[in-house]
Each structure stands twice: as C-alpha cells, then as structure tokens.
C-alpha cells in the first residue's frame, strides 16, 4: 500500500472515530467518549456482564500515531525536495507538530477547579476527575493534619497500615459508578465502605459517597477526626482570594452578559501580591497555570475557576500558522494564472 493510500485509509478511519465519538457523547458524556474513542489505542467492546474486553476497532491514539508515522515517512522519504512542493512541505511539518501537540496535551494537560466563595482564600485546587479519601485531624487550633488516600489505592481494597497513619484503614468495599448522562462534572460517583482500627478498637464502618460528600466524625484519645471522600486536592505555592464576583445580565432579561472575578494573587514569600480581574475570555496566566472564569454558584456568592496546566499549549498555535501558510503557498502556486500544474 502506498503512502497516499495509507493516508486516505487512516483519514477515513479517523472520520469514523470522530462520528462515533460525537454520537457517544450523548450517552457517555464528553470526557467518557473522548477516553473511549480518541485517547485510547483501541475501541473496545465489552460483552454483557463480562470482565474482559475485546478490541474491535483502532482507537484515536493508534490512528493518530500511524498518521503521524506515515506523514513523517512520506515527508522525509517520498516527497521530493523542490520549490513546487514547498507548500506541501510546510503543511506536513505543521501537521506533524499539531499531532505531536495533541499527544503532549493528552499526556501532560491537567485540569482542576478552584471553588472560591466571596472573601474566601484558597491555596489549593481540586481535581475534576479524581477523588481521594481524607482523614482530617482537626484538634490543633492552628492547623489540620490531613491524611489523604488516592482513589487508585482505594480501588485495590484491603488494609492500609502506615506508621504515619494514626489508624489501620480497612477498605470494606469500593464501587465506582460512571457519571450520569449529561452531567456537568465528569467525575464518577465513588462509594466506599471503610473502617479504622487501633489497639483492637474499631471505628466505623462508614459508607462514604463522593456525590453526597457527607462527613463522618469521631473522637479518639481526646483528638477529633473527620473522614470524607472529596475531590483530590493539589496544593499551590501561592493563594487566591476572591474580592468580588460580578455577574451582569442584559437589562430586562436573564441572558448573561458577563461574569468576572476580582481576585488577589499572593504568595507567602511576598514576591507576588496583586489584584487581577478574571473574566470570560480573559484568563489569568500565572506560574504555568491558566485560571479561567468557568462558572458560579450559590446566587453569585461563589465563583468557580477552571485551572489548566498544559506545557504544550503554544505548540498548536505555531503548527496552525505553518499549515495555513503552507496551504496558502501551495494553492497559490497551483492556481497561478499562468496555469503551472501542481
């Protein structure tokens, strides 16, 4: 099969995947569908009730990789080096960059949220997809001691005994229910049953649910503890305080005109202490992270910021400029009035 034929087959496969992914979004939600069709090397089929899955179609990851290899091969092995093909060279280089950029994004992009009440300060952000089990010792007046167990560890079950943990944690059951259709959040509903043991005494068991977010409390040896399932927290070397949240509508309507959060950004060392306005289409970029005005809650008293870290975010910009310039060059030469053929 020639390289051109391979290209056509791969592009057609990609089209089938894009259609399937789009249709699947009504059932799986965007995050689920992209995971199943685009980011995975294969599209799997799981027979009813089976624990195994069978790959039935190449996934976006595989097709994309093959396209990239084929493109690079065609580019460097087949395509002649000549002025006539200069446009195509630039187009293909741009496309290689674009694919590479999407792989970088797939592997390195992290999305989190910060939920900021007016007047509140947060030095951490919460993961959109992952849950953690937090055991909080709130006895001390000035700080909480937090022990966090990741969702992955919870899924393995069994008991966790660690010298740093004041108790032995026993995981009775773990259940992950996929996010319902059309839900805003992409995170699954996690339910676990846990109990704690120390010196032969047992606390719990409690059944915790990440959706309801209930908190169980108990005391032991004069210390007060709370245990809960919550979105995984990532701590930041700086903090944000929400000074004001602005929600404008067009007069006489409910149509939103704009949302904006006025926040103070500061760090402990005092290197940064300033105020910024984060609004729709105007994010704050700070410390390799981008903060976007995503949503709001509780009658405009809580602002929700989306936080994205993507080291490859500038790659697509460059790639696209290359492809556009290349296409323009190629078509300009192709459709020159003198009728020079391609």
């Amino acid at each position, binding site marked *: 099969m020639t390289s051109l034929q391979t290209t*056509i087959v791969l592009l057609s496969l990609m089209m089938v995947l894009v259609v399937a992914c789009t249709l699947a979004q009504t059932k799986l939600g965007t995050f689920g569908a992209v995971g199943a069709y685009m980011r995975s090397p294969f599209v799997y089929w799981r027979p009813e009730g089976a624990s195994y899955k069978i790959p039935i179609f190449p996934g976006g990851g595989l097709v994309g990789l093959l396209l990239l290899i084929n493109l690079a091969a065609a580019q460097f092995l087949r395509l002649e080096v000549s002025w006539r093909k200069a446009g195509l060279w630039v187009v293909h280089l741009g496309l290689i960059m674009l694919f590479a950029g999407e792989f970088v994004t797939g592997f390195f992009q992290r999305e989190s949220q910060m939920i900021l009440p007016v007047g509140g300060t947060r030095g951490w952000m919460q993961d959109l997809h992952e849950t953690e089990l937090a055991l909080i010792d709130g006895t001390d007046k000035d700080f909480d001691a937090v022990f966090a167990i990741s969702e992955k560890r919870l899924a393995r079950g069994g008991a966790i005994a660690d010298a740093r943990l004041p108790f032995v944690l026993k995981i009775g059951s773990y259940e992950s229910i996929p996010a319902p259709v059309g839900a805003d959040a992409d995170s699954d509903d996690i339910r676990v049953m846990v109990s704690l043991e120390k010196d032969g005494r047992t606390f719990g068991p409690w059944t915790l649910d990440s959706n309801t977010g209930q908190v169980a409390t108990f005391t032991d040896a004069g210390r007060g503890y709370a245990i809960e399932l919550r979105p995984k927290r990532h701590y930041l070397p700086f903090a944000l305080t929400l000074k004001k949240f602005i929600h404008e509508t067009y007069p006489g309507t409910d149509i939103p*005109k704009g949302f904006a959060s006025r926040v103070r950004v500061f760090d402990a060392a005092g290197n940064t202490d300033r105020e910024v306005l984060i609004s729709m289409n105007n994010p704050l970029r700070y410390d390799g992270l981008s903060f976007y005005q995503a949503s709001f809650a509780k009658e405009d008293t809580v602002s929700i910021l989306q936080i994205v870290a993507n080291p490859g975010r500038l790659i697509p910009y460059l790639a696209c400029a290359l492809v556009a310039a290349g296409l323009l060059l190629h078509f300009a030469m192709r459709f020159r009035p003198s009728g020079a053929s391609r």
Partner: protein
Amino acid sequence: MNKNYFRYAVLAAGLLALIPTRLGTPGGFDLAGFAALPVLHEGRIKPLDTVARTSLLMIQGKQDLTDQGRATSASQWLLDLVAHPEVSDVQRIFRIDDPDVLGLLGKPGQERRYYSFMELEPSLKEIAAQGERAGKTPQNQRGRFEGAVLNLQDRLNLYQGLKNTLRLDGSRDWAAELDGYRSFLPVAQAAILAHTKSKGVGGKTMEQLNQFFQAYSFLSEASAFRALPPLEPGSKAGWNDIGASLLDELKGSPAHPLITPYAAMVTSYRQGDAAGFNHAVADAASWIGGRQSAAVSAAAREVWFNRAEPFYRGMILYLMVFMLVAVSWAWRPELMRRCALDLLWLALIVHTAGLVFRIIIQGRPPVTNLYSSAVFVGWVAAVLGLVLERMHRNGYGALVASVTGFSTLIIAHHLTNTGDTMEMMRAVLDSNFWLGTHVVTITIGYGSMFLASALAHVYILRRWLKGEGDPAVEKSLVSMTYGVICFALFFSFVGTILGGIWADQSWGRFWGWDPKENGALLIVLWNAVVLHARWGGYVRERGLMVMAVFGGIVTSLSWFGVNMLGVGLHSYGFMEGAFEWLFGFIAVELGVMGLGLLAVPMRQTAR
C-alpha cells in the same frame, strides 16, 4: 428586439421586486409612527415594528397575519393587542401542530392548526399545569408533548405579557385610570407616612393603595418590553417599564413624561380617535427624539430594514437568475446568460446590503447565530459562484450561485421563528474578535463546501440527462469544483484552528472534542481525503464529483446535525422539526451520489 433593451427590461423587472412594503395610515391612524417608536426588548433597543414581527413570528410562525381572509400587518396586530385586545383575542394566530396538545385542549383530530386566544382561554390552567410538569423534566429528556406544551405556554405568556405592557389588560379607559391614580397619589403618600409613624389610617385608603400596588406590580412583572427611556439624555442604561415607573411615583419620583402619551395612544386608539392617537404618537416621538436621538435613528433604520426585507427579496432575485440560466439552455444562450449575470449582481448587492445592515444594527460581525450563519453561507456561495462565472463564462457559476443562494436563504427564513434574529450574545460568545474570525472563517468553509457540492450536482445530473456531453463544459466544471474544494479546505482548516485558539483563550482547552468542533474537523478530514485521493489518481473526475456531493452531506451534519444532539457548548439551536428535513436531504444526496456512481445516462436506461 435590441439585446441591450432586453437586458434593461430584465434588470427593471428585478428592481421591481425590491420596492418595499408600506405601513401607511389605516383608518387615519399613524401606524408607521407607532411602529418606529424605540423600546427595550430582550436587552436590545429596537422599534415596536421589530417587537411586533418577532412576537407574531413566535406565536404564529409567520410575520403577516391573515385571519379569516383579512390581511393585517404585524404592527397593526401589535397595536390591537396592546390597546384593544378584544380584537386580537378572536384572531386565530396560535399555531398548534402537536396532536397530544390538541387532545389536551379538547380539540383532537381537527383540520385546523390555528387557534385564537379566546379558544385557548378555557384551557389556560391545564396548559400551565402541564407546562410546570414538563418544565421539571431535564431538557434533553423531554418528549415531543413536553416540548410542545412548554412552547405553547411560552407563546401564551408572551401574548399576555404584550397585553399588559402599555396598559393594564381589562381597563376601560387607561388614561382616565392613570388620572385617578395621580390624584390619589398625595393621599396615598400621606397615608404611607402616617402608617410608618404608626398612626391609624383609614382602612379604605390603605385598601385602595393596596389595589393600585397589586395592579402596577403585576403590570411591571408581566410587561413584555420596557417602553420608557432613561431621563438623562443619551444614557443607554435605565430603561423602565410603565408599571415599575408608576410604583416609583408612590415613592415621590416624578412622573415619567412618556407615560401620558402612551396612555393617550392606547386610549384614543380604543375610542377610534385617530387625531388623538396621531397627536400622542408625535408627542412620544418628539420627546424620545430630544433625549435619545441615537435610539430613534437606529429604530428608524431598523424599520426600514424590516420593510426592505433584503433576504426575502434576494431569494426572489436568485430564483429569477436560476430561471434565466435555465432558459439560456434552450434559447439565445449568450443573451440569457448575460441577463442572469446582471440579476445575479443585483441579488448579491441586495444580499450584501442586508448583511451590512445587520452588522450596523447589531454592532456585531455577520454570523452570530444559526439564522445568520445560513444567510452568510448563501452569501459566500453566491460570491464564489459569481467569481467562477466571471472566470468560466458558461452560465454554470451563475447557476450554482443562484441555487445555493436561494436554498440557504429559504433555510434562514425557516430558522427565524425562534424570535428576534439579532438577540443579545451570551457571555461566552461575547467577543467580536472571535466571532469575526473563527465563526466567519468556518462559515466561509461551509459556504464553499455547499458550492462545490452544487457544482458536482450539475456535473452528475448533466451526465445523467445528456450522457457524455461537451468535454469543455465538463472540464470547466471539474476545475471549478476542484478549486472550490481547495478553497474550502483552507477556510475550514483555518476556521477550525481559530476555534481551538478561542477555546484555549477562554477555557484552556485547545481541543475539547465538542460535537461542533468534531463537525468542523470532519469537513477538514473529508477534504483532505478528497484531495489525497485525487492527487494519487485513485479517483478521476466522476469520483471527485461524487466525493464533493458527500462533502455537502458532511457539511450539513456539521452545521445542523450536532445542534440536534443537544450536547456541548455549541448546541445553541432550537431544532425541532429540522431533523426530518436533514434526514430527507441526506437521503436525496445519497441518491445523487448513487446516480453519479452508476454513470448511466437516462436515455440508455430508457432503452
């Protein structure tokens, strides 16, 4: 006959189609003056004429009212509704198609699709109850009945809101009632003062005060638009409705000077007093003109735009172009082609003028919603068709320009019944820069895809009807299609990427696999497949044409299909009923592709 005279005659016929309609002065009432008054409606300052047209369109599905054989303009209908609703209540304007809703109203299996408010009134409670039930169901789980009953409820709310905007529905003499209120005001204010000092106040005064308070609170709440401009000259914020302004008078605010002329308008109209009505309209217009001259001239422009109906008239002109090209195949080809080209220029000028007017009125780039995307898709296709016609001079450029221009304007026409097509932009979309770059570029891509598909139709149908025809014509069609596909690939790609950049700028995801993004990507991928297949020589001319038709299907799915999925950030369109049309379009297009693949001329099959 001299060739030039014939061309002039055809052009004159085209110009005749452009004469705007007039509102005139039915019964001596200055309807045009009333229609030009600016108000604040759905966040935008617009003339009452636009309020009338969009409201009637939402309720009835059409901008003109023909009730039992009598034609009425939208503005006339609005004037009746706000001033003399007894007339409007018996007009059959509520279109109801859903059999279950008709069953709910106790009118199953009737031939009629239009009902008057009077006929619906006995069922208002039942409709509200069902509407509340349906409203609790999440939007994507609503069935046909739920959607239809909510839609009917919205339209009834709009209708009753309009009744209670310039006067309280049910009042006999609104002007006299206002006089009564104002002479009661000093008594009421004294009573309130006494009440706050907790002295006993006559129960009758408080009761009367309470009645006014209830009535005007209701008026303020129900009001469909805000008729009172701010008092400070030139200010854009602070438009108020009549109910709220009347309540403000209780607190000692001065009476808004426009309340009296509006009251005089509705009262004298009810009483058949044309002179009084015209006087009140002139009063209101001159007061607003003194304070809000910008709003008045914008409203006047918009009334003119509404009357000129450039897209409707463009549609007629495109149809004429199509007919002239068709005639050219049988009779005096060169002359007919020239006439078609003349009219195509005219159509394009009208179409462009309409777009420019919308840009000026809205202060936005040309594409802001599904409706305007249809208008713009047609414009792009027509411009490209004209360019091709100038290059190839064989009538086919004009033909495809007229066909795509006409069909996209028809589509736009059917997308208007969701109300004002110049609605305010939601916060996410409120960016003229990205609307002007990403959205416009993507839409240019759509337009060129449809044009390529139209050219391919001509090629395929020609072959089917005539067999192996004129090789020069076929070569010209192939080169046009190929060029347009290259053009489409460039704009679709750049547009898709600009969308990614916008997404990265506003929520940090360059690519989110949103259905609309995927739709745009499909167009890019398909064009890449077509061009690689052509370059590799895997398809020849006929194959290229069949693939171009498929490109049209992909574009239609990207344009409309994803709006029907109801997921993602781009699912802004209200698409009920459009599904069948899209399905039908795809079926027909697949048929055309089959015809292209068979490549057996009709005469041979007939043998």
